[in-house]
């Protein structure tokens, strides 16, 4: 979760805005240029600090503005019951630190191994205060420039041709101090509790303020509105002391193990589901909250009725019709002692001036600001949304709203900025084509960014001319694939591969049985039906256009490619099996590039060098540069046994024996000529 920025202003704030506005318009010249920063980051939560880290490492001019006296203030209060549901897996049996980040959902990225969350908590589901301590250390130890106790109350746009983006962002803090920023990075999280307006909503307590002491609920009938993790977390806390808990929400409960989305209900919170299905008085109901009304009776108990009844009644408690008056078995006919609202949070749009055109995703969804696939606001260039608030890009799909996901998307944004403003192209490595299979395998086996941000960030392989070499770019946002060249500063003229991770289509969903028999695929030829998260490689002969990306087939994370390869799902997420994983991948790459990517011993290359005019890439790039693979005697023996190598010594004897009797006749291919050999001949 992100950090909440001040909502301390009602009307006084507004007055301040007007005052400032006047000051600006009346004395535009006189107003001395406010202190300038190239980069301003709003919020010192996980996303803000993560961005600060990258800016700091790159030596950029930046400041983080934080309302609270320390970083991660959201976590000082939330979650109310203090247990984080992001896992802190300290043991994986693997030494690979990149791989281990796949199972560390709390750490931010840094070069300092001491700043791994496992040093901060032994708990699998750590306490929120450990997160506060961790973020504090992160900011302090890395010396990040954070201005604490600085509430940015207002953000406006100041047009200026000189500015990087044609305008500056003017930030004004609570003291009226303005700051001028070239780029604005908004990492304020979601801080406004989501309220539903219905008659009687004033009787409802909010998650943010409700008591967390179970004693306060002893022997009570409790109604909870919502069915997310905060609702279930609240229920879990009081489950043992209440008479019963009813939970009411618009749509059915979404279990994260069925949807593969970490934001849905996690098993650690779902005790109520158990008691509901085991007939223990607790229960779940589905209804649209906006149709409801709550009526308080004389004893202070709450009755549920419909807005419709409430409106036609004279709004006096006793006079309002209750559903049970018509239908005497209405489910919520009991009176409740408490009604608690746990409906999540929304982004705080209030501090952004209209000129920024920072709008919400849709008319009905005020939860997130509208951003592009590059996390840049659609309204103003140079304004990026980071962290939880940027989750609209992959809401209910991937992990972009959570630390373990947005730590990578923040890095992607930083890489974009480095190229846009400092001419530093997207980091990449260049290799000879013979390393292609290895490079892909390495990443799918260890990369955490691909794994966490599946289908949102993907690696890109840019093939060089004549397919003799390639460039490898990590973790590029798939939705802006068409703009790859402008964003990265690289050329994609000769085709590209995109390496993505995907669950099987149709596998995940709130109503899906994810435990059905035969759910896993073992045969390589069925790899495309893999259900569990597995690598998928797309090959494009040409960089897809924006059109291609926008009108891609439904359920496809990427436009339709020229060819596609699925590496078959693996129970251990270890895709290194020579025949099951590597071989089909190599065949795919070979067929896309129309070349032979096999590796050969020096002896084979020697044979090819003297008997053919052209050599396979492996021999060209290794053997011919005196870097051939010589091999050992025992490997040579295996080659003979496998039939890959004709045993010339044996042929020698054979030939001598038969020489005299059969002069003039060609050597018939004996049993020593074997499948492998004949494959080569077929080339």
């Amino acid at each position, binding site marked *: 979760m992100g950090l909440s920025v001040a909502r301390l202003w009602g009307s006084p704030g507004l007055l301040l805005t007007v005052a400032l506005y006047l000051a600006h318009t009346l004395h535009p010249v006189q107003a001395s240029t406010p202190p300038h920063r190239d980069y301003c980051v709003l919020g010192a939560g996980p996303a803000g600090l993560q961005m600060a880290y990258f800016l700091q490492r790159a030596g950029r001019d930046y400041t983080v503005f934080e309302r609270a006296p320390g970083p991660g203030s959201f976590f000082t209060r939330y979650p109310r019951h203090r247990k984080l549901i992001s896992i802190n897996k300290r043991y994986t049996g693997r030494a690979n630190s990149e791989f281990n980040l796949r199972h560390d959902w709390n750490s931010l990225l840094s070069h300092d191994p001491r700043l791994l969350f496992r040093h901060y908590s032994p708990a699998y589901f750590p306490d929120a205060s450990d997160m506060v301590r961790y973020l504090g250390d992160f900011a302090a130890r890395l010396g990040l420039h954070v201005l604490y106790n600085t509430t940015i109350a207002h953000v406006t746009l100041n047009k200026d041709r000189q500015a990087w983006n044609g305008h500056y962002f003017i930030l004004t803090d609570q003291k009226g101090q303005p700051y001028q920023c070239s780029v604005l990075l908004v990492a304020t999280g979601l801080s406004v509790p989501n309220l539903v307006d219905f008659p009687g909503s004033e009787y409802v307590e909010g998650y943010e303020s409700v008591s967390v002491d179970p004693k306060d609920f002893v022997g009570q009938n409790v109604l909870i509105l919502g069915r997310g993790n905060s609702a279930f977390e609240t229920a879990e806390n009081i489950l043992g002391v209440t008479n019963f808990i009813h939970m009411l929400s618009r749509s059915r409960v979404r279990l994260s193990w069925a949807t593969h989305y970490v934001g849905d209900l996690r098993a650690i919170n779902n005790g109520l589901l158990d008691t509901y299905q085991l007939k223990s008085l607790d229960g779940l109901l589905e209804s649209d909250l906006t149709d409801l009304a709550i009526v308080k009776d004389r004893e202070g108990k709450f009755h549920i009725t419909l807005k419709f009844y409430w409106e036609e009644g004279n709004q006096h408690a006793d006079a309002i019709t209750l559903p049970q008056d018509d239908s005497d078995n209405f489910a919520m006919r009991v009176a409740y002692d408490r009604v608690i609202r746990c409906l999540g949070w929304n982004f705080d749009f209030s501090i952004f001036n209209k000129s920024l055109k920072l709008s919400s995703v849709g008319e009905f969804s005020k939860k997130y600001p509208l951003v592009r696939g590059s996390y840049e606001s659609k309204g103003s260039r140079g304004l990026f949304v980071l962290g939880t608030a940027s989750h609209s890009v992959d809401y209910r799909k991937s992990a972009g709203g959570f630390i373990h996901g947005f730590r990578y998307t923040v890095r992607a944004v930083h890489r974009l900025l480095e190229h846009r403003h400092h001419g530093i192209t997207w980091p990449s490595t260049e290799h000879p084509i013979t390393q292609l299979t290895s490079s892909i395998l390495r990443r799918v086996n260890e990369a955490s960014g691909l794994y966490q941000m599946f289908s949102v960030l993907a690696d890109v392989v840019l093939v060089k001319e004549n397919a003799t070499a390639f460039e490898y770019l990590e973790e590029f946002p798939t939705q802006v694939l068409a703009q790859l060249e402008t964003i990265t500063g690289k050329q994609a003229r000769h085709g590209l591969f995109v390496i993505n991770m995907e669950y099987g289509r149709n596998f995940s969903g709130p109503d899906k049985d994810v435990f059905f028999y035969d759910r896993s695929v073992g045969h390589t030829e069925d790899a495309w039906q893999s259900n569990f998260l597995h690598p998928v490689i797309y090959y494009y002969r040409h960089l897809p256009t924006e059109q291609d990306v926008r009108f891609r087939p439904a359920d496809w994370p990427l436009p339709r490619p020229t060819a596609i390869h699925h590496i078959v799902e693996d129970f251990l997420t270890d895709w290194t099996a020579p025949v099951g994983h590597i071989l089909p991948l190599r065949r795919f790459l070979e067929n896309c590039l129309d070349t032979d990517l096999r590796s050969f011993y020096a002896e084979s290359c020697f044979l090819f060098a003297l008997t053919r005019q052209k050599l396979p890439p492996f021999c060209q790039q290794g053997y011919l540069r005196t870097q051939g693979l010589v*091999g050992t005697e025992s*490997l040579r023996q295996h080659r003979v046994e496998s039939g890959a190598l004709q045993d010339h010594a044996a042929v020698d004897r054979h030939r001598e024996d038969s020489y005299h009797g059969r002069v003039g006749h060609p050597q018939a291919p004996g049993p020593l000529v074997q499948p492998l050999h004949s494959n080569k001949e077929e080339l």
Partner: protein
Amino acid sequence: MMSSSFNIFRVGISFVMVCIFYKSSVDCLPELSSQKYFSTLQSGKASLAYFCQADSPSTSVFLEELKKAVKPLQDYGISVAKVNCVKEEASRYCGKEKDLMKAYLFRGNILLREFPTDTLFDVNAIIAHVLFALLFNEVKYVTTLERLQNIEDSLKGKANIAFAYVRAIGTPEHRAVMEAAFVYGTTYQFVLTTEIALLGSIGTEDIEYAHLYFFHCKPVLDLTQQCRRTLMEQPLTTLNIYRFIKSMEAPLLTEVAEDPQQVSTVHLQLGLPLVFIVSQQATYEADRRTAEWIGWRLLGKAGVLLLLRDSLEVDIPQQANVVFKREEGMPVEYLVLHDIDLVISHVENNMYTEEVREDEDDDIEGPDMDTLGIQDDEVAETVYRDRKRQLPLELTVELTEETFNATVMASDSIVLFYAGWQAVSMAFLQSYIDLAIKLKGTSTMLLARINCADWSDVCTKQNVTEFPVVKMYKEGENPVSYAGMLGTEDLLKFIQLSRISCPVNITSVQEAEQYLSGELYKDLISYSSVSVLGLFSPTMTTAKEDFTEAGKYLKGCVITGIYSEEDVLILSNRYTATLPALLLARHKEDKVESLPLANTHAQDIVQMITNSLLETFPEITVENLPTYLRLQKPLLVLFSDGSINPQYKKAMLTLIKEKHVDSLTPCWLNLKTTPVGRGVLQTYFDVLPPLPLLVVVNLHSGGQVFAFPSDQAVTEQNLLLWLKKVEAGLESPITILPAQEWKPPLPAYNFLRMMDAAASQHSSRKGPECVKETDVQENDKEQHEDKSAIKKEPTETLRIKHWNRSNVFKAEKSFRHDNKEL
């Protein structure tokens, strides 16, 4: 699959009788006496007979190939037999001498053609020649443009022409053309040429390959007008030609007014997509012209149809102007393409999968989907086979993130960076361990290794992102990457030579003499046959710097030393060198050469030294071939079984000395130490003459291989004469090395196609695209249950398709062939 064609049964009957005594009915070549043979000839039926002496060997290359041709020729109603000539028999067909045997083609008992066996060099040549002879009237062979023009003119308004260029008679392409002519010879006029010039004058630029054009002459009414031509873009195979001609027969443009999903034409059966140009009443005329234009452009690649939107009952998206249907049963794509070129390129881009399937088709009888899972990477296979062997890994130090820096700082170390899952680096790890065994207890150099699959961060920090990599860490020096052969011997050499600094600072004349004689580094000269000494007067600072840089660059390859004391003149005088100079001490020959070094940059010094390491007449080995290939000259190789004959060596050395072979790289190959050389010889010679053998291999331009005649004595004169003839182009090569590119050894799974197949299946079952919320659950259940059923389907469908297609062809062939017989 092919053999199940009913056609074969019918034609094959007469042979079953004969063959029953022989072998299985497939591929058998009946052996008859000549008397018997002539009695079996039926009038009107063609027959190919090979006459040979009864006592001749029962196998030869020709007979093998002839056997292979039996079945395909039977398909065309042509019987094949081997006729044994009895000695006393005086049939004119039986040659007088053993090697003058020929094959004869009869129709009934009339002799049509006789073929020397060397023209029928393989099965393709046999079939091509036989059909060529039989279809003499149907296929016109032309050599001049004029002749072609005449044929074209005479057919205008009457018939279309299939014009083919093949590189030579008897090639597989020629066979494919003849087989097509067999089927279509009466419908179209086939014209064949082998003249490149003729093809060039038609305007083809890339003449390396066989070509087939379709001349649309039938619609041409004005004799002054040229026939429109369509080039077939696929390679010339029988199936491709069949498909191409079929698509030429199809109408250029068809008008339809029904749901594109339901429309099917011959194109789809041929595996070609359909392109619908969406038209409206208002723009009908213009649309039709556009569609016709596209039709011409896509002729042979796709079927083009004009879809009349106004009279259409189903809805198609409003803005779509092109509909693309890849194949039967697949959902159509609605496209918005505002440019004819976009339409063309869309079709051509989507041909890609088509090509892949082509491959599958071609080798459907060879590797099917199952063989894709067979490992054909020799390194991966051997490493896998060796996986259970315990290596004495403890002889090398395993590094981790924690120990890496401390270890490489504490002692001079060699580190192997590898990845546990990467076959090449695991193969090299074995050599590395062998090296550790060799060096056990003798080396001051620490042998370490780090598995980058576990410690990828460390490897990345050391700038290692490929595997395997070997780096040497020495105190106070930058790490050096090893760039030699990935094998025990070369790495050992590198380690040993790296023990001394590079260049070594020599401090006295006496020491210099010891250095040059090999005394100073006695234990190292087995690794470096040359010791290099740079001589400088103390003031030549730039020259010294350049040399030192070169020395550093060559670290681990060769021993280098530097001498720049005041008394350097003693040395320069002794070795008649002008300062600055380079002394090269060749320890094997016990000889010291000197080279001037004035104004030579480091790069050039490196080049000088590397060149000096090359021998004039080296024994070529697997390890050193690349260094000699760099010279980019044809190789003059003496293949020797064991060590080289001194007489030969002398002759070669004399030639070298007299500078007769400067345009070549003379060398010799010992088959005992380099057994793979035998594999090389097998490729050069069908029949291996006795060793030693002298061969010129022109690797870098043309790939010709010339062999020194084995009946000539290896003398300087003979050699020189032969080399001159080779150079003058008077010798004919014994073989030409193939110049093919290295293509994918096998196809890959076509997952995109499988996904499409499954998707179309789903959508057809579900009916309309949008599914109501309530139905979803039900459908999903169904999907899961059905999964096992769907799984196998795609490949099956593929095969069935192929089967159908090839049988269409077969059926057509047999149909046509019935006509012939009548």
